[in-house]
């Protein structure tokens, strides 16, 4: 089931005019910001399908940028986000793409800052509900609605049980989990959506596991 809560239907409280093209777009931008962990220096935003055709009328552009600035869907500064981004030193490039994607409301966001780069693909499936479908070329499914841990690691035996043992020790319940890899034995990504708040020491302990490259925490 794509929708799990009554508040996916009655909600979100948001700045108009479109739940999928404005609020959903802002949420995808905000997930990208959270995963990047800081304000990027540059963002290249590629819009597909209905996003590409109607982004100007729906404010999809300023909504995504508002998300990159960590603003909420109901933040009244949202329509001014492009100006705010400029003041904060975030360069934004918009591209509309002709390619046909699986979902009509698709956006690809590339973020750059210092040595770090991030590429994320998100879809806005209706009513403000979103899914992140790709992260740095890894296919995944992430709603951004629940606290989550993303583990970038080397594809080796035992890594999944090592990670889940740590979560079990801290009595953290897993709601959804998936693993994907670029190639056998290469870099892999584990996405774990959990029910509880994730404390710093959990992240620290996970970071110290063998073959773990990076841990990203996503709070609700």
């Amino acid at each position, binding site marked *: *089931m*794509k*929708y*799990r*809560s*009554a*508040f*996916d*239907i*009655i*909600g*979100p*409280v*948001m*700045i*108009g*005019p*479109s*739940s*999928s*093209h*404005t*609020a959903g777009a802002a949420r995808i931008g905000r997930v990208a910001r959270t995963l990047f962990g800081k304000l990027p220096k540059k963002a290249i935003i590629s819009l597909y*399908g*209905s996003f*590409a*055709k*109607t*982004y*100007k*009328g*729906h*404010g999809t552009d300023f909504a995504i940028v508002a998300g990159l600035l960590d603003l909420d869907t*109901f933040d*009244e500064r949202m*329509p001014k986000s*492009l100006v705010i981004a*400029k003041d904060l030193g975030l*360069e*934004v*490039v*918009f*591209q*509309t793409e002709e390619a046909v994607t699986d*979902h*009509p*409301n698709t956006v690809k966001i590339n973020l750059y800052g210092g040595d770090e780069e991030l590429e994320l693909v998100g879809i*806005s*499936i*209706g*009513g*403000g*509900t979103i899914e992140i479908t790709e992260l740095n070329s890894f296919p995944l499914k992430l709603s951004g609605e629940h606290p989550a841990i993303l583990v970038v690691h080397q594809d080796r035996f035992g890594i999944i049980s090592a990670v889940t043992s740590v979560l079990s020790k801290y009595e953290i319940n897993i709601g959804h989990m998936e693993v994907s890899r670029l190639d056998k034995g290469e870099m892999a990504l584990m996405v774990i959506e959990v*029910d509880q708040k994730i404390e710093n020491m959990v992240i620290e302990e996970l970071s110290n596991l063998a073959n773990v490259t990076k841990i990203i925490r996503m709070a609700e």
Partner: protein
Amino acid sequence: MFRNVAELVQLAETNQVKIAEIMIRQEIEVSGLTREEIIAKMDKNLTVMEQAVERGLRGVHSHTGLTGGDAVLIQNYIKSGKALGGEVLLDAVSKAVATNEVNAAMGVICATPTAGSAGVVPGTLFAVKEKLQPTREEMIEFLFTAAAFGFVVANNASISGAAGGCQAEVGSASGMAAAAIVELAGGTAQQAAEAMAITLKNMLGLVCDPVAGLVEVPCVKRNAMGASNAITAADMALAGVTSRIPCDEVIHAMFLIGQSMPSSLRETAEGGLAATPTGRRLEQEIFGNGNTVKLKNLIIT
């Protein structure tokens, strides 16, 4: 967890509770929040809806000037005493329009289930409120009932205009509102499902064709139609009228219709009203040459 309307109705009947209560119980289970926290959360959404309607009824205009001020016109007309349609009906229409005028003006609203269709549920709620005089608690229940039916549509069909056309947005909102009105008015769970089915049947095939890609024309007035459709269907269901096609089958039909709808009629501003001579002229007036695709590689610095 209920997966369709039949299961939802059966859960309400077996437990001898309202549909709203089934939704609240499921939310407690899924979210891990307490009943009080969940009620408080919905109460906040209700407050946002009240504020949006109030703002719209004071008169609001969008940045483009395409929409705004109609809610006030309708309210004044009701006050003149000349209205031909019932007062509750027109009041619902004006309040639905009020909410969507605020949405088009980039004001704060609560999506129900989407922003483009955000007028129908609050519009009908605040109109029948004058007649049924519900408590605050009952108004919050109204929203949970609407959520339960919207939940089924969202998981079995779509609530996105880009995926399923306007039937998925204003259509879903109208069905949700109709079912919630029935329950608030004291109808049974089955009658709520009949109202949902009757409403959706009258919305099947409705395309999403926003002029210039803006959630203004025809979205605001489609909310007016959605609200009147909901009240009519709710009255029909309360009168004992049933749908020959069961609600879940109507929802599935809506899904299939959405699947076969061409992309030009699914929120791309390429067909329907968006492609009329006037629609194109308005687009050009608002966005210059009107060709947003040419914005490729536009650098905002």
